[in-house]
């Protein structure tokens, strides 16, 4: 039947339009019913064997079937909150409940005279009440099914509504039963007309307002009830062909909706599963897309980061260029001035040879000084391309320190070098590591410029840790790190300096991470902070000749041009 044409679980029997196949089934069943009635009509008066067990078995089936149908309909009401569904559920519940006294009162079913009532009229009365309540429920369904319903907060909960409805039905059935069994009837009930009228009206209303699949099946139910009542009225003898056939119609009334409900539930389950699969596929596709996006973003980020690293390098070079200019301009001033003096001495009538000699000596000295600076720069920039080679960290650090020496002296920084004696060589990009060290030194100096009340001490240490790691740390006695800044100091463009760009540390960290190392900043116990990086030694291609450890006394002084050290 219903193919899983609609994967929408909101669409259910009560609002699902029937397909052509559905209508064909409904029509076939209706015709079959009428045909069955027509066939058994001539034989309806014929008495068949009295089977006392028939009533308990048959009505037991109806009881269970109607009860299940009622439960399913109640649960549907709880979902859709349609009054029509509630009324229909009540109809099935009343049908299930009233069967109980009917079976008990039926003579021969349990005891020969029936458990209560007057053995003949009581069951008939109960039967007609049964066949009155159910068609009324059908009619009620037909009349209310197109109501617009809206859920609002002041509505009682489904649980309350269903509970109340069940109580009302139980009350009606009990009261009816009580009156029926306590009254002595002299005549069979004349409820037939009313019941028939209710049933026909229900069929008519359903026909006129037929829309959903459930409407169509309920028409079959109403038709079955009409045919049953006709048979029962026109063949009043118990255990006749008409009696048995009527019960079969009754069975049809009771089970059609249940079967359709079960079928529909299965269909819904299937479509739900399909929906779930589709959803899963969509979610997977979405996840895949997100991952792709993320990958693209990461690639873009990496590109930006290397661009940033390059930019910083250029920027650092810019700063360096100014430093270089300053460094070289100083000896050049000396050279030019000395040469000028010398020339004047030689040009004079009475040349002062001593002064000229002294000036020439200073010229040579300053020339050498300029040459030294250039030599150092050459070694710093000769390996411009980023490539990892075996290198000596102490040596690389010394070159950077030499470059910064004038600045360090300018700010009266006491430099203490604690270089490890036999530091193993590492495989790394020398220029990049020097950039990091330069950044450390620059930061340390910046942090100490505002500190006047105590000596500005800068301790640079190198050490071998865990056999395969090498660490370099720069400890200053500056203003230290603001706890606020601690969290963000590695973020690109975060800076506490008025003229900083905030990229030094972030780039330094990416350089160290590219070397599979770690860069950390820690506040000192005393004033200032310590910045350090640790990198693995990496694969060492060739061993560097062992370096003599640099200690303070033979440290910077030795490497540096003579200046006015303070």
């Amino acid at each position, binding site marked *: 039947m219903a193919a899983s044409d609609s994967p929408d679980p909101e669409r259910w029997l009560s609002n699902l339009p029937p397909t052509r196949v559905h209508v064909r089934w409904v029509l076939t069943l209706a015709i079959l019913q009428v045909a069955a009635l027509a066939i058994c009509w001539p034989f309806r008066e014929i008495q068949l064997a009295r089977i006392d067990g028939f009533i308990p078995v048959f009505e037991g089936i109806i009881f269970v079937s109607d009860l299940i149908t009622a439960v399913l309909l109640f649960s549907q009401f709880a979902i859709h909150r349609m009054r029509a569904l509630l009324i229909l559920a009540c109809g099935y519940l009343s049908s299930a409940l009233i069967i109980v006294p009917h079976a008990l009162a039926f003579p021969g079913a349990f005891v020969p005279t029936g458990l209560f009532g007057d053995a003949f009229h009581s069951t008939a009365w109960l039967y007609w009440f049964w066949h009155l309540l159910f068609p009324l429920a059908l009619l009620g369904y037909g009349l209310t099914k197109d109501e617009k319903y809206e859920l609002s907060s002041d509505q009682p909960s489904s649980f309350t509504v269903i509970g109340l409805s069940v109580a009302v039905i139980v009350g009606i059935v009990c009261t009816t039963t009580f009156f029926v069994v306590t009254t002595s009837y002299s005549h069979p009930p004349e409820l037939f007309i009313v019941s028939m009228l209710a049933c026909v009206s229900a069929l008519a209303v359903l026909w006129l307002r037929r829309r959903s699949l459930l409407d169509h099946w309920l028409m079959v139910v109403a038709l079955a009830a009409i045919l049953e009542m006709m048979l029962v009225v026109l063949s009043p003898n118990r255990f006749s062909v008409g009696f048995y056939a009527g019960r079969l119609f009754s069975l049809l009334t009771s089970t059609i909706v249940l079967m359709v409900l079960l079928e529909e539930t299965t269909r819904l389950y299937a479509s739900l599963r399909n929906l779930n699969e589709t959803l899963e596929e969509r979610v997977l596709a979405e996840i895949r897309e997100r991952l792709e996006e993320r990958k693209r973003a990461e690639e873009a980020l990496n590109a930006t980061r290397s661009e940033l690293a390059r930019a910083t390098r250029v920027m650092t070079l810019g700063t360096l260029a*100014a430093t270089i*200019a*300053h460094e070289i*301009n*100083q*000896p*050049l*001033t*000396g*050279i*030019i*001035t*000395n040469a*000028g*003096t010398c020339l*004047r*001495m030689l040009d*004079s009538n009475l040349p002062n040879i001593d*002064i000229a000699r*002294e*000036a020439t000596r*200073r010229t040579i000295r*300053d020339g050498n*000084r300029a040459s030294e600076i250039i030599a150092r720069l050459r070694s710093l920039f000769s390996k411009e391309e980023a490539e990892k080679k075996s290198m000596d960290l102490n040596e690389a650090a010394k070159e950077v320190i030499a470059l910064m020496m004038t600045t360090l*002296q*300018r*700010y*009266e920084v006491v430099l203490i070098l604690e270089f490890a004696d036999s530091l193993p060589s590492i495989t790394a990009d020398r220029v990049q590591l020097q950039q990091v060290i330069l950044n450390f030194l620059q930061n340390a100096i910046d942090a100490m410029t505002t500190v006047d009340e105590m000596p500005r001490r800068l301790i640079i240490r190198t050490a071998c840790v865990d056999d395969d790691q090498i660490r370099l740390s720069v400890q200053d006695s500056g203003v230290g790190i603001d706890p606020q800044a601690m969290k963000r100091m590695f973020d690109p463009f975060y800076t506490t300096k008025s003229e900083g760009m905030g990229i030094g540390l972030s780039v330094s960290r990416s350089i160290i991470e590219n070397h599979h190392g770690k860069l950390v900043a820690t506040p000192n116990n005393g004033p200032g902070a310590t910045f350090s990086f640790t990198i693995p030694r990496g694969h060492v291609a060739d061993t560097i000749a062992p370096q003599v450890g640099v200690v303070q006394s033979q440290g910077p002084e030795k490497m540096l041009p*003579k*200046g*006015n050290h*303070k």
Partner: protein
Amino acid sequence: MTQRSFVSVVDDDESVRESLPDLLRALGHDARTFKSAEDFLVSGQIDNTKCLILDFSMPGMNGLDLQQELKKRQKGIPIIFITAHKDNEICAKALDQGASACLYKPFSDTELIEALSTALA
């Protein structure tokens, strides 16, 4: 250069302090050097100084600070600034504050002579 003028040189760079006095003497001036602004202020040579050759960036008190300090003390010494940083802004500021000249290192002796003659005029 008819008369010998007393020129003070304040610079933290040793090359300059060593070379400049000889040239100044060759040019017919008396010269004395100081490695910092503070040294100059306590030297007792302020009143003798006819011209001050002054570096901008020095540890401690810098050139511009010294210029302000002298102004405060109402010492109208002509100042020739010398600097290894080619920074037009700072030069303009110094000239605004009354400096006589601003020379970028390395400067030629011609530039120095010109600046001295303006300052001592």
